[in-house]
């Protein structure tokens, strides 16, 4: 029950949420011991996507500004971290934060033209920004050019993190921290300003919300999240090249946010988990039991076997359209509906 302001901003609204949060933390701690290596790798991949999507949600879901260029910030984070570590020999965490700040700087730059743009104009501007960043990064020799870059050894306070399991805890700590920060931001003055801008920017301005400040802040914040996630991503793959950060990555991020439910905290997390899982599974679609054999037959008789991995696009596209047509709040909307159904049952 929310009775006052402090009840509203509290991190855990009741003992039940606190219990589930504690259960989740314990599960996350035990996770590497319960599952095999591949699933730990998958958890790292999911954690990174969660960071990006939570950041993207601050921009798209809360501030109402569309961005089709987040792959660019992601790339800045990945390249920035590696370059700062190898050329400037920064320690990892410092490099990660600096790379995030660099990405935030670029986010601020993108936020400036975004002040005057909306709708399709903003979409094409952010899209072009992302594509330009990726292309420019791909042509700079210091950044490995088309050959890409290898990640250096990851050392944190004297510990070498070499396996996915060791990296897992680092990724999880950063993810949980960033998610909690994002959730708290939405409950502060800044978060309320974002929502006000989304709902009616003219009304917000007349109420004294500084549009210039908060719109650019939303872009910078969102870019910071993407940058940090990119820095972690570089160490999950251990090798990065410009082709990884194409337009489809930006779309993939947006898909995850939309599928989960824009403008909520838990929704995008659920969306990121579901779609990252699907992404990794559908890459080897022919190995899925039952469906795989059928698809192999179908592909050889009517389609082509080489292009079978493109079913991934069909699945994602269908998810996007179905969600937009039937449940614009995404997974979060489904959850609310379910909850309502059980609470009011049998009415």
């Amino acid at each position, binding site marked *: 029950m929310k009775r006052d302001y402090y009840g509203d901003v509290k991190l855990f609204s009741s003992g039940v949420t606190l219990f589930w949060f504690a259960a989740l933390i314990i599960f996350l701690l035990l996770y590497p011991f319960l599952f095999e290596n591949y699933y730990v790798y998958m958890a790292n991949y999911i954690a990174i996507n969660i960071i990006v999507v939570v950041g993207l949600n601050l921009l798209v879901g809360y501030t109402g500004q569309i961005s089709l260029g987040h792959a660019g910030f992601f790339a800045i984070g990945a390249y920035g971290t590696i370059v700062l570590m190898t050329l400037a020999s920064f320690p990892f965490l410092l490099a990660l934060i600096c790379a995030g700040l660099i990405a935030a700087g670029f986010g601020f730059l993108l936020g400036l033209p975004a002040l005057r743009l909306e709708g399709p104009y903003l979409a094409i501007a952010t899209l*072009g920004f992302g594509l330009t960043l990726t292309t*420019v990064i791909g042509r700079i020799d210091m950044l490995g050019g088309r050959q890409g870059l290898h990640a250096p050894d990851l050392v944190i306070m004297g510990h070498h993190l070499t396996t996915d399991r060791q990296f897992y805890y680092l990724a999880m700590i950063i993810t949980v921290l960033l998610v909690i920060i994002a959730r708290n931001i939405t409950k502060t003055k800044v978060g309320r300003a974002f929502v006000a801008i989304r709902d009616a920017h003219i009304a917000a301005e007349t109420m004294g919300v500084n549009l210039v400040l908060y719109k650019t802040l939303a872009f910078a914040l969102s870019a910071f999240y993407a940058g940090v996630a990119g820095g972690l991503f570089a160490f999950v793959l251990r090798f990065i090249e410009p082709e990884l950060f194409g337009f489809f990555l930006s779309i993939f991020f947006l898909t995850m946010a939309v599928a989960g439910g824009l403008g909520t905290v838990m929704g995008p997390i659920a969306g990121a988990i579901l779609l990252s899982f699907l992404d990794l599974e559908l890459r080897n679609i022919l190995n899925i039991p039952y469906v795989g054999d059928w698809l192999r037959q179908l592909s050889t008789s009517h389609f082509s076997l080489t292009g079978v991995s493109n079913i991934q696009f069909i699945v994602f596209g269908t998810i*996007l359209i179905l969600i937009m047509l039937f449940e614009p709040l995404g997974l979060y909307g489904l959850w609310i509906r379910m909850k309502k159904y059980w609470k009011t049952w049998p009415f």
Partner: protein
Amino acid sequence: MIDFIQMIISGIAVGSSYALMALAMVLIYKASEVPNFAQGEMALLPVFIAFMIIYSYGYSVFAAFFGALVFALVLGCCLEFAIVRRAKNSNVLGLIIITIGLEMILLGFVSWKFGADERVMPSFPISSYDSVMFGDFYITTIDLLTLIVALVIMISLFLFFRFSKFGVAMKATQQNETAARLMGIRTNRVKMVTWGISGTVGSVAGLLIAPVIMDPYMMWDPMLKGFAGAVVGGMTSLPGAVFGAYIVGIVEHLFGGYVSMDFKAVVAFAVIVIVLCVKPSGLFARHYVKKV
């Protein structure tokens, strides 16, 4: 100087296919108020249908192209009828996401069916290496063809909007949908056919690009450049879109020739960001001020 003029000619030639895509996007934007990210793929599928008609069934190129254009018309109508119309209550972001979803489905389907390999449009009469000389300047035959076809389409669209009853109905729907409906125009049907026409115009661009390069990602670049051109021109103005697309084509070639070949592909976006900073609604649109 000769180089300069040659680059402008090449830019105009490339700009013609961008202009067709830009026209297609503006048509849909005016009808449904959504930048249609599926435009490229709505052209891609008919191109591969034409490929299949020639390759598997052995019809002539003209029959196949005609079939592909009819298919594009039907495809556009179907997409609007089956999907876009159902999302009436969505905001701009929702509609953009729906078109991105359509784009992914169509792209996934084409690359599943045909693989990601590069294909060659079979028995197309003009080779991509032929060219025509005008004094000191040359233009490849296929580019010349694209230029002529683009001009023909622009003129016929102009005549269509100016003189045909259906064209006027389309204009009315775009300007004020409620008033148009009150005047007895079936706005839903008008929108559906707009999508069909837009798909056809886009497919013409696709079919003219296919003899040069043909793989599942071939429409990606023309679509983005067409979109960029449309935005430069103001997204709501057909002549503006054409003009913007030619600007994008010319700037791209001049930049490629004088500054750097490497960044040729992205200079268009730098141009639009600059243009949008100065005129947030493009060069040709009146700035739209929302009433509070």
